[in-house]
Each structure stands twice: as C-alpha cells, then as structure tokens.
C-alpha cells in the first residue's frame, strides 16, 4: 500500500505541471496573428446565436449534418455563401438573417479562412505517427 505522502507527492507534481502548462499556454497567446475586424467579432456572435455549430464544422469540430465551413470563403466566395444563408437549402432552414448579420457572418468566414487550412489531404504523415501541414 502506498503512503499518503507518496500519493500526495504524485498528485501535487501532476497538478503543478498542469497549472504550469495551462499558465504557459495562456501567456503564449495569440497562437497565430492575423487581422480581426469588428464585423468578424459580430459575425462570431451571429454564428453562436443561431447555433450554426449544431450542423457545421470548423476545423472538423462541430456538427455532422452540414459541411465543414473552415475554408468555404476561399473555395466558394462571398456571393455563394450569401445565397445559401439568405435562401436556406432543403436541409438548412432560412433563418431570415438581416443584411447586417449576413455581412458579419461572411466576415467571420473570411477570418476563419485566413487562419489556416482544414483539409486533411494537406497533412504529411511522419513515420512516428505525427502529422505536419
């Protein structure tokens, strides 16, 4: 049976390492620098207020009913996005977004697009199992 001191030592080491890791991560933000406009910040609010993540993904994270939208801005362009948002599809309802909300949402997509590529084909696999883009 391990003593309380031994168990506490292991727990303290683990938790202290975690807190150090967490603080280091918080302090080393931003991870990537790129311009963020007010429209983009408002667009993010729209994305959350309409719960778009229930169906759509960003970097493969989110819902599965609709497509991943990380790079929809560079692949399809703003007009294509606007057409979908303002009309809906046979799967997606028309949420009746105002013009302002639509523009902000498109600015948000532009911002996500500039942050990186989500296509898994763009990754290179190393022999040790790690990946690199």
């Amino acid at each position, binding site marked *: 049976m391990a003593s309380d001191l031994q168990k506490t030592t292991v727990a303290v080491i683990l938790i202290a390492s975690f807190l150090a890791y967490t603080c280091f991560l918080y302090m080393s933000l931003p991870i990537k620098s790129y311009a*963020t406009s007010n429209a983009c910040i408002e667009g993010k609010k729209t994305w959350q207020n309409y719960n778009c993540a229930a169906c759509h993904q960003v970097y493969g*994270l989110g819902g599965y009913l609709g497509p991943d939208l990380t790079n929809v801005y560079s692949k399809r362009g703003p007009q294509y996005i606007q057409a979908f948002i303002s009309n809906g599809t046979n799967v997606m*309802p028309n949420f009746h977004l105002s013009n302002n909300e639509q523009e902000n949402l498109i600015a948000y997509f532009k911002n996500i697009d500039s942050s990186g590529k989500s296509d898994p084909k763009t990754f290179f696999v190393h022999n040790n199992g790690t990946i690199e883009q």
Partner: protein
Amino acid sequence: MEPLNNKQLSTPKLYLLTGLILLAVGLLFGISGAIQYLVPDYLKEHFSFEKIRPLHVTSILFWIILGSTGGVVSYLQQYNNQKIKYPFLLKIQYLIFSITILTILIAYIFGFFGGREYWEFPPILALPIAIGWILFIINFISSVNSFRNQPVYIWMWMTGLVFFLFTFIESYLWIFPYFKNNIINDMTIQWKSAGSMVGAWNMLIYGSSIFLMEKISSNKKHGHSIVAFALYFTGLFNLLFNWGHHIYTLPTYQYIKHISYAVSMTEIILFSRIIWLWKDSVTTAKKHFHYAAYRFLLAADLWIFLTLLLAILMSIPAINIYTHGTHITVAHAMGSTIGINSFLLLAICFDILHDTCIPIAVNIKWLNRGYWITNISLFIFWISLIIAGILKAKWQMSASPEPFSVMMLQLRPFFGLFFIAGTIMSIGFYLILYPLIKNQIVCYINQSKIK
C-alpha cells in the same frame, strides 16, 4: 438511526430520479434528431436540427451530471455511515440545477442560444451551474472527515469535483476578448476545457463504480491497493494532458499535439489491464450476474474495452487525420456516453434505487429484455456510425470529392441503420427506466399522502 438506502425519496435519490427522466427525454430528442438525417426537411422550419441537437446533448449531459452527483452523495453517506454534512445545501443545489436545466431546455425550444458546442445556452445560465457546483464541493469537503488514508474513490470524487469546476470556468474564457478574438486561441482553449471536462465527470462515475464493485464483492482492500492508485494516476495524467487529440488538425502549437499524443499512449496500460483481467472478469460475471447493478457494470466493462481501443487509435495523429470530423468521432462519443457513462450510472441507480417502494425484482423479466435489447442495438448503432465514418473519411481524402450532399446521400443506408438501431435501443432503455422511475414516483406520492 434509519438505514440510508431505505425506501424514502431522499435528496440524492431525487438527483438520480431527475437524471433518469432527463435520460428518457434525451433519448426522444435523439430519435427526433436521427430522423432529420433521413428526412432532412422533417420539422425543418419549426424544430430544426440546431434546436434538436442541443436539446438531446444537454438532456444527456445533465443526466450524467445529476446521476454522478446522486451517486457520489449516496455512496459518500454509505461510506461515512452518516448523512452528508449540509443536507440543505444539497437541496439548494438541486433546486438551482433543476430550475437552470428547465430554463436551458425552454431557451433551446424557443431558439435562444449564444453559447458554444455542448453549452449552447446563453452564457449567463452558466453562473447558477457554477454556483451549484461550488455548493457541492463545499458539502463534499465538509463531509469527508479526514483526507488521511482514504480509498481511491474519495480521491477520484475530489478530483472530479475540482476539475469539473476548473474546466467549466475555463470553457467560458471565450467571453473575454483576449481569448475569443482569435479563432485558433479560442478553439485551442475550448477543446482544452472540453477534453479535460470529460475526464472530470469520468472520475466521479468511475469512483462510484469502484465503490459499488467493492460493495458487491465485499472486498474493501481494492480501493487502497497500489494498482488502484496507479490506475487513478494514469487516468488523472490523461485528464490533465491528453486533451490535444481533439485538435490535431487545428493550426495550433505543435507541442500541444506531441504532448497529447505521448500521454494518450499511456492509455494502453489501462487497455492491457482489461485484457489481462479478462478471465477473472468472466468468472466474477458468472458469480454476480443475477444482480441488476452488476450486469450494467459488466456491460460497461465491454464498452470500456471497445471505446478505449477506438480512443487509442484515434489518438494517433496519423490515424486521426482520417477519423477527425467523421462519424467515427460520433461513434466514440456514443460508446462513451451510452456504453460507459450511462451503463455505469444505471448500475449505480439500480444499487441505490432498487428497493424503493416496489422491489425491482418484480420487473426483472422486462429488465432482462431491456438489458439485452439495449446492448445489442447499441453495438449495431455503433458499427453503423463507424462504417458511415469510414465512408466519409474516404470522401475527405478523395482527390476529387463529390459534393457534400452527394456523399451524405451515399451514407443514407447507414443513417437508416443508425436510426433503426437507435430507436430499438431507446425502447430497450425505456424498459429499463420504466420500473426505476415508476418506483420513485409511487414512493413520492405515498410520502406526500402520509404527510
């Protein structure tokens, strides 16, 4: 003194009962959501998927949270052989949680969101949840008489309680511009908290399961053994550092991914132990299979094996680029929440609630049917998601992929299977839940009449 596991509808039992009702409701929303994969314009205008999904997820999430709370409090009372220190705090916590959960579900029905995946409700509603949880921590710490020479489940409960609060607060850092104004920062912290939070509630549930296992086997030594603590520390190590496997494809720091990959591989230790103890498990199963609670522990054992195998594979970045963003991830989530969390919580519920008013033994035939229906259909459900995931992975990796809608049409047969298996699984669950819920409600009505 009255025995604690008696026929009264005590507050901890009320947590379990509310959790069970949420599970029943969550299953209905789940079926409704699955229909929308097959008939996309079904309820599209008034009750579309962006409402159904959070209704389903939140109901199940709070089944896990309330079930864990009920389990921890009941077993802590049994362990101490005395009531929890502040029963009124437990009641206040219950009241806060019930009102908040109801408000959240109503908000979703009317389309009020503003939060993020898993916590889609307006952020202000996170405040009562955090306050309720702090009350729980105060009650727990005050009720554990001494932290000297305690069994592993006390450590696990304490860890789960503290880290749930930590990760819950962390999951709301996005409200500050420093975190939210950069998508990569935001998603990194979001999945740091979400990944660790799952580990936190697993600590609560696994802790209660170890207590239950000791109770069934009458072996009090396991909770103090070196092996139990070694496994606990392996779990804690993973809770703290393996969250990065959710974001291998996010352009975040490479070191996050390398740490997560290395730490996740320590789960092989847990996996190997399950294989090593397989023969013993089968022998023990034969001995205790007549206990309803044990049966669910056994089913969870099988699901831990399957889910852990999938999790280890998905934690290898070279494999993860294929599985990420596909239904294989959903299969993993369903295996964990249904096969592990829900089965373990049902085992705990059967142990704590089995003798309330009408003995469960009266309904044993229906319970048996429910048990087998749920397990077999869950396996078919899980396999259909994995096949759908493999096909989506193939599509994602294709040099010239067809449009998304065409790919979704090709997956439709597997969504059909997923819907049928999910519906049958829900029927199985209802056969299990009906006697449990009915017993508690009958008991409540009887209590009211006496008063």
